[in-house]
């Protein structure tokens, strides 16, 4: 077989691998940080990513208690590992009203990315995924496009473009 016929290995960005419509909340119902985390974890249960949302929520809250995962500029990336999660998952949620996430700049959070993963010993992917999100939303125009996106498809495209850009 000539090299030309070999299909090149395409590396799909981590962020792209974790985008699922069932794990997207277009507009959060709640406004307080604690209930927002609860709402996001509940989506994990609905999408069958866990059958024990209470235990997963405990893990997320414990991580949050170590220091806020609000990054500023309207972004928060809460993340935790839990025995009750069998597959790495990401929930994306938007809040037009804004959530007080104790971010360093004191501004309300409008875009929230919740990452949960099982506790694996060698899993650089977990924090690499967090890093990819942080990179993808660094530009103000990307953040605005994500907030203005009419549907999950547009959110998905925007994030993929930003991750590849």
């Amino acid at each position, binding site marked *: 077989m000539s090299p030309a016929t070999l299909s090149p290995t395409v590396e799909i960005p981590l962020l792209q691998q974790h985008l699922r419509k069932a794990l997207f909340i277009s507009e959060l119902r709640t406004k307080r940080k604690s209930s927002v985390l609860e709402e996001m974890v509940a989506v994990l249960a609905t999408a069958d990513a866990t*059958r*024990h949302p209470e*235990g997963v929520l*405990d*893990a997320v809250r*414990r*991580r949050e*208690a*170590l*220091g*806020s*995962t609000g*990054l*500023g500029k309207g972004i928060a*990336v809460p993340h*935790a*590992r*839990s*025995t*009750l999660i*069998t597959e790495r998952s990401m929930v994306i949620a938007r809040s037009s009203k804004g959530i007080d996430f104790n971010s*360093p700049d004191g501004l309300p959070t409008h875009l929230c990315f919740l990452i949960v993963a*099982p*506790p*694996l*010993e060698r899993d650089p992917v977990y*924090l690499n995924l*967090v*890093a990819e999100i*942080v990179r993808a939303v660094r530009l103000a125009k990307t953040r605005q496009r994500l907030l203005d996106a009419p549907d999950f498809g547009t959110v998905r495209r925007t994030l993929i473009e930003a991750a590849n850009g």
Partner: protein
Amino acid sequence: MDESLDVLIQLQDVDCLLREMRDPEMASQEERLGFAVEGISNLERTREKLASRVDGRLLQTYERMSRRFFRVIVPVNGRVCSGCRISLPTNTIGRNSEGATYEFCENCGRILYRR
């Protein structure tokens, strides 16, 4: 899920978080990404409280096995232990002092939970 097993799962999650926060490489990666990390002593107290709620014999088994395995409590996927990936022939049942039962993987000895 049995309450003692539920607490033990929380204990394992706390241990995982403590290991990450004590790992200089992981802790600095968190900080580089912009996340604040503090209050580890509170987490250590949470661990103590959780450990005090677990049956003594079960806790001893967990502590002993956690020196060998990163994850001591693992889910069963179908009939496969997700720790060692071996199909479970029959379940080995352990029993704590209050009579509650736990399943152990016959191959690796990990504590199992059903999803």
